[in-house]
């Protein structure tokens, strides 16, 4: 079942729990620099934005990869196969959103893999700033709008 992470910056409180949960989920240790999600705090504007791989339909990273180590799997995830990976890092340059990274510590390329269906970041985010959605279903916003229209129609 295809899934997507949805980010609502207005709900983000800059706590970086997502970074911790992500690194722990993948590596059993706490290291925000190994996380696939990074939180940016724009202090003066009082806005915080978590950024992670958006599982592009036309992934630039996969397009540039010389060995086919990056491809879209059956769940719609742009998946990284470490066995095929040369760590040439072309993908790191290619992603326009900076969402695929090279770790000097592990000497590997890493990106979000949606934790095989149960994303840690969404699970632990205390405010719902990061949540999981199946893009095939009607997004919550549309349903909210429909509810509002329905009540207006009912009144009339």
């Amino acid at each position, binding site marked *: 079942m295809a899934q997507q992470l949805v980010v609502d910056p207005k709900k983000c409180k800059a706590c970086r729990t997502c970074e911790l*949960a992500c690194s722990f989920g993948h590596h059993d240790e706490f290291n925000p620099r190994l996380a696939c999600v990074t939180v940016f705090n724009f*202090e003066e504007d009082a806005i915080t934005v978590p950024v992670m791989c958006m599982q592009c339909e036309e992934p630039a990273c996969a397009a540039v990869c010389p060995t086919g180590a990056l491809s879209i799997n059956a769940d719609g995830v742009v998946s990284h196969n470490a066995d095929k990976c040369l760590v040439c890092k072309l993908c790191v340059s290619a992603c326009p959103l900076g969402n695929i990274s090279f770790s000097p510590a592990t000497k590997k390329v890493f990106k979000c893999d949606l934790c095989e269906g149960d994303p840690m970041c969404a699970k632990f985010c205390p405010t719902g700033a990061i949540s999981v959605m199946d893009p095939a279903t009607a997004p919550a916003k549309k349903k909210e709008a429909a509810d509002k229209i329905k009540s207006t129609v009912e009144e009339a």
Partner: protein
Amino acid sequence: MTVGNGWTGTLLRVNLTDGTIIREALNMKDANDYVGARGLGTKYYCNEVDPKIDPLSAENKLIFMTGPCTGTLASSAGRYEVVSKSPLTGAIGAANSGGHFGPELKYAGYDGIIFEGKAEKPCYLYINDDVVELRCAKDLWGKNVHEATDMLNAECGEDFRVATIAPSGENGVLFAGIMNDKNRAAGRGGMGAVMGSKNLKAVVVRGTGSVKVARPEGFLKEVANARKMLIEHPVCGEGLAAFGTEILVNIINEVGGLPVNNGRDGASYDKAYDISGENLAEKHLLKNQGCFGCTIACGRVTKVKPDESEFYGFGEGPEYEAGWSFGSDCGINDIAAVLKANWICNEEGMDPITMGATIACAMELFEMGAIPESDIGFPLRFGDAEAMVKCVRMTADAQGFGKILGQGSYRLADKYGHPELSMSVKKQEMPAYDGRAIQGIALEYATSNRGGCHVRGYMISPEVLGLPIKTDPLVTEGKGALLKTFQDLTALCDSTGICLFTTFALGLPELAGQYREAVDSDESDEEILLKGERIWNLEKRFNMEAGVEKDTLPPRLLREELPSGPAKGKVAELQTMLADYYEVRGWSKEGEPTSEKLKELELQDISF
């Protein structure tokens, strides 16, 4: 316990006099016995420093210490502690702070830093994983917290975390704090002045390493449970996020415990709503904010626009304490002025509790004619918001009367012949709860190891808020035993690296559970709580050797009856509660740990 389980296993020892930097192995026995952060920092300090030392001398040491949970996914686990002898009180001083600095130190590979000696010229400590060096701070000296932080980020890199002092610390303001991540404070007791006395401006750190726990699967289970409890709790999951700690203003006022005009005019304020969290949220709150890994997110990001008030600006806070100290304690209900005063304290690294309470003391002294106007330069009366903000500014700038304010209310009141009007204990100002209306907090003020402090034995919780049990604020019965539990549990929590605010929702089992899985312990909850008691008694022993005054309260609390409100006619019935408290603690009638108690806590061989 093995190294690498919660801990990195390495401490930095920095000698500022000769510039040497040593990496030494963390003392794992002490780490086990004293948990971390506050407890472990205090143990190291007690091992190495003479209690009679002058806090602002080169012989004093300054210790930064994280906890084993700091930097992990444990609930709200971004805390670290700064420990030294306090120049304000002469007692053991330790200040706890949040933000993101503590975790970054762990990621760089260090559990803590011990600073010794004094640098010849202003410097800062640069930590970038393995690279640790002292650098010249010539251009930073004299800059406030925000300026210095921006300059350091520009010079070292945007992803460095910064802990710095402001000119207040450089100039020896006795309540100067150390600020990290710009607006988070290791605030009370003058740790910033100790740092400044060493010509140490800042510590910057960047870490790309990891923190590991001993039992990852068990840890994740404990953590998930704790976080769920926090999110579902009405206070930790909703109330604090929406209104911040200033939510307390109305309820503390309702029980008649919000001190007005330095406590001179009782503790019921008719304009309390104006300085409340509700009013703040409505008028000036942009959003709430969380520290590292925190579900509670009680931080306030606030703004006052130029067309709203002369006291315009932007920043973080205020907390309940600042809302009171610059608000009702000074007879002021102008919330913009309160915000402004608090922002100056953040930017200038000063403890807002002591700052506001010192100004309030000065106001009382002025109104009774004890301070001539010529000493101040302008009239200083209760209710004068402009004068109050001016005083904060003058203290930050060490200008004129500001130099006297910078010594705290006790030395100010003593200078003008009325030390009894300093609302302080052991020379540190009591915070925002009147001990006459809330008996248990009066006992905490009198007995707290770092002087007038509420947070280390937060009796407000049971006596006013009804958490975890509901007790009557007007009675003295049972307060001794209850306070001991709060003090020991707080000492434990402060030492894990987990934020104290989690304890509104979590109890000993949840704190101990996360700690156990992190450090590979099979100790029971009670055995772990005992470590908190050990820490409390160690602090007490230090204070005894340092010659700190005995446990008491200002005459106002002991003898001036509250004039109005639900606690009308009450004074703080300290003697009854003290006797009860000493007994429960296993101390002598004079309030000193007995040899049996020290043996029980394995403190019998501690010498200073």
